[in-house]
C-alpha cells in the first residue's frame, strides 16, 4: 500500500505532470487532424521518450494516446471525417449536431464523455487487470470472427441511410480487405500485378479518402457557410452539456464498460467498441428515432467507449504482452526498449513502474477535461470562422500530408485520392462510407477468425459445433440476429398494431 502511494506521488512530480500535459496537448492536436491517427501520434513521438525515465516515457505515451483518441472526435464532429478509426461512430450524431448549429455542444459533450470513458478504463486497468486479462484468453478465432460480424451488422443497421446499401457497403469493405496476401494460405489476391498492393490497402489512406474527399467535393458545390454558429454563448454551452451528460450518466458508464471490455480483446480496437456501444445505446434509448440526426446520447455512447479502450487495451498489453490496439503495439515496443517485461509478474516485480504509469494515465485523463474544453472552445470558434474557400484546400492539404506520412509513399496518396472519388460516387448513390471503412478494418479479423475456426473445427471433426456451440459465440450470434432482425420485426409489429387500431 505504501509503495502504491509512493508510486502515486512519483506520478505527481512536476516533470511527470508537465509531460502528461504536453502529451495530452500533442495528442489532441494530432488526433484532430484528419489523416493523422492515434497510432501515428504515438509512433512519431516514441523516439522522444527514450531519453526519459521509463515511467516518465510511458506517461507521455499514454497521455498522447488518450489525447489523440479524444482529438479524433473533433474532425468527426466538424467535418464529418473521423480523425481516428475509433471515431467513426462519432460522425453519426456529432456531425448532424454541428450541422444543426450545436457543434459547440457536441464538442463539450464529446470531451466530458471521453473523460468518463477514460476514467473507467483506467480504473479497470488499475483494479482488475489480471482477472480481465484472463477473460481475453477465452476469446479464440471463432469469437473474434463473430465479434467482427457483430460490428459489421451493427454498423449496417445503425448507420444512417438504407440498410441494404449499408450491408453492401460492408461487403465491399470486406472485399477490399482481402486485397493482398491472404491471412491464411498466403495467396496473393486481387492485386492485378500491382506489387504495391501485395501488402494490402492501407486502412488510414482509404479511410481519409472515403470520408474526406466526398466532404471536400460537397463543400465545393455548397453555397453558404459550412457550419452555422449557435446563437449562444461564448462558453461552449458547458452547463448545458454537463446536464445532458449527467442525465445520461448510467448510459455513459455502460458505454465505458463496453469500451473497456472490447478494449481488452487484442486487435478488436476502438472502432468495434464505439459501434457496439452506439448500437446498445440506440437499442436501449427512448429516443431511437433521433439517432443519426444529432442525438447527444449517440455521441456519449461512442466517445465513452472509444476512450475506455485506452485503459482496456493496456490490460492485455501489460498482462499478456499482446497489444490490445495498434497504438498499444507501438507502446509495447517502447516498453521492451525500456527493459520492461510484460506478463503476470509485471504487477509484482516491476510494480513501481507500472503503477506510476497507471497513475500517469489517470492524471492525463483528468488533464484532458479542462484542456479539451478550453482548446475545444477556441478550435470550434476558429474553424467555423474559416471561410470555405480556405477550409477546402486546408483539408486537402491535410489529407495529402496525412496519407503520405503513413509510409512515406506517394502511392498511398494516389490510393487515397482514388478511393475518395469512388467514395464520392457511391455516396451520391446512397452508399455511405462508414460501413465500407469498417468492413476494411474488420475484414482481416473476420477472415482470420473464420478460417482458423474452420481449421480447428475440421481437426476436431465438428466444424459446426466450433462455430455455433461455444458459449461466448452463442451470445454473440444471438446479438447478431437481434441486430439484424429485431428492427424489421418491430416495424412489422408496429404496422400491424397501427392497422388494428385504425
Amino acid at each position, binding site marked *: 500500500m505504501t509503495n502504491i502511494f509512493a508510486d502515486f506521488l512519483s506520478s505527481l512530480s512536476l516533470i511527470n505532470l508537465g509531460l502528461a500535459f504536453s502529451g495530452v496537448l500533442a495528442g489532441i492536436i494530432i488526433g484532430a487532424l484528419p489523416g493523422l491517427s492515434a497510432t501515428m501520434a504515438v509512433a*512519431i*513521438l516514441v*523516439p522522444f521518450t527514450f531519453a526519459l525515465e521509463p515511467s516518465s516515457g510511458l506517461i507521455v505515451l499514454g497521455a498522447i494516446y488518450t489525447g489523440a483518441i479524444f482529438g479524433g472526435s473533433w474532425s468527426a464532429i466538424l467535418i464529418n471525417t473521423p480523425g481516428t478509426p475509433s471515431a467513426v461512430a462519432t460522425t453519426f450524431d456529432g456531425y448532424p449536431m454541428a450541422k444543426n448549429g450545436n457543434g459547440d455542444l457536441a464538442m463539450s459533450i464529446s470531451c466530458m464523455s471521453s473523460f468518463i470513458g477514460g476514467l473507467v478504463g483506467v480504473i479497470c486497468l488499475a483494479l482488475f487487470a489480471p482477472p480481465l486479462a484472463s477473460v481475453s484468453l477465452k476469446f479464440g478465432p471463432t469469437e473474434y470472427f463473430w465479434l467482427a460480424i457483430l460490428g459489421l451488422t451493427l454498423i449496417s443497421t445503425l448507420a444512417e441511410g*438504407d440498410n*441494404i*446499401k449499408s*450491408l*453492401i457497403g460492408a*461487403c*465491399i469493405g*470486406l*472485399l477490399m480487405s*482481402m486485397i493482398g496476401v*491472404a491471412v*491464411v*494460405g*498466403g*495467396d496473393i*489476391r*486481387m492485386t492485378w500485378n500491382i506489387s504495391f498492393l501485395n501488402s494490402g490497402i492501407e486502412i488510414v489512406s482509404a479511410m481519409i479518402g472515403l470520408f474526406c474527399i466526398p466532404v*471536400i*467535393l*460537397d463543400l*465545393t*458545390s*455548397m453555397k453558404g457557410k459550412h457550419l452555422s454558429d449557435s446563437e449562444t454563448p461564448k462558453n461552449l454551452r458547458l452547463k448545458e452539456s454537463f446536464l445532458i451528460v449527467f442525465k445520461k450518466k448510467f448510459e455513459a458508464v455502460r458505454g465505458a464498460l463496453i469500451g473497456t471490455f472490447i478494449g481488452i480483446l487484442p486487435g478488436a480496437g476502438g472502432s468495434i467498441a464505439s459501434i457496439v456501444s452506439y448500437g446498445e445505446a440506440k437499442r436501449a434509448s427512448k429516443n431511437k428515432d433521433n439517432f443519426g440526426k444529432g442525438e447527444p446520447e449517440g455521441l456519449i455512447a461512442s466517445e465513452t467507449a472509444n476512450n475506455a479502450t485506452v485503459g482496456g487495451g493496456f490490460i492485455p498489453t501489460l498482462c499478456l504482452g499482446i497489444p490490445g490496439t495498434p497504438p498499444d503495439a507501438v507502446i509495447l515496443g517502447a516498453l521492451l526498449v525500456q527493459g520492461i517485461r510484460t506478463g503476470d509478474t509485471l504487477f509484482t516485480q516491476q510494480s513501481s513502474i507500472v503503477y506510476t504509469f497507471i497513475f500517469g494515465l489517470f492524471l492525463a485523463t483528468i488533464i484532458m477535461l479542462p484542456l479539451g474544453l478550453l482548446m475545444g472552445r477556441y478550435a470550434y470558434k476558429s474553424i467555423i470562422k474559416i*471561410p*470555405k*474557400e*480556405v477550409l*477546402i*484546400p*486546408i483539408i*486537402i*492539404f491535410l489529407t*495529402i*500530408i496525412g496519407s*503520405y*506520412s503513413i509510409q*512515406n509513399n*506517394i502511392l498511398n*496518396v*494516389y490510393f487515397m*485520392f482514388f478511393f475518395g*472519388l469512388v467514395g464520392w460516387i457511391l*455516396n*451520391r*448513390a*446512397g*452508399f455511405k462510407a462508414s460501413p465500407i471503412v469498417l468492413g476494411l478494418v474488420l475484414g482481416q479479423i*473476420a*477472415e482470420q477468425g*473464420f*478460417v482458423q475456426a*474452420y*481449421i480447428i473445427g475440421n481437426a476436431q471433426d465438428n466444424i459446426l459445433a466450433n462455430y455455433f456451440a461455444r458459449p461466448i459465440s452463442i451470445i454473440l450470434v444471438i446479438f447478431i440476429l437481434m441486430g439484424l432482425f429485431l428492427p424489421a420485426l418491430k416495424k412489422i409489429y408496429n404496422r400491424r398494431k397501427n392497422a388494428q387500431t385504425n
Partner: protein
Amino acid sequence: MLRQIKDKISFVSGIFFVILSFILFYEASTLSPFGAVFPFAMTTILIILSIILIIRSFRFEIKVINQTISYVKIPLLIIVFFMWIYFLERTGFIITSLISFNLIVLINSGLNISLKRITLYMILGSIFILLLYFGFKNLLLVPLPEGLWFRDL
C-alpha cells in the same frame, strides 16, 4: 421494363455490383481453398444483396438527397488535386503545395470575393503550409518530398 423501375440509382448500382461480384468470384476460383473461402462467401452475399436491391428498385424508391453539383468547380478541383499529388515528388512538397493550395482558393472563391480578400487567404494559407512543412520535417522528423531541385534543403 425500364419504365417500371422506380429507383434507377439502386437498379444501376445493383447491376454494377452483380457484375463486380461475378468478376471477383471468378478471380477467387483461381486461389487455394483457404485463400478462396472468404472471397467466395463475400461475393455470394454481395450477389444476393445486389439482387435484392434490383428487385426492390422495381417496388419503391428510396430517395437520396444530394448536394447539387457544380459542373465547373468540381472537375477543376479534381484536376488540381490530382496535379498536386502528381507533382508532389517531382517538384517538391513546398512549391507544389503553395501553387495547388492557391489555385484551389481561386477555384472556390469565384467572382464573389474581392481581390484583397483572396490575396489575404493566399498569404495565410501559404504561411500555414510552410509552418506545417517545417513542423513535420524538423520537429516530427517526417521526411516530405523535396523534389528534383531542392534535394539538399
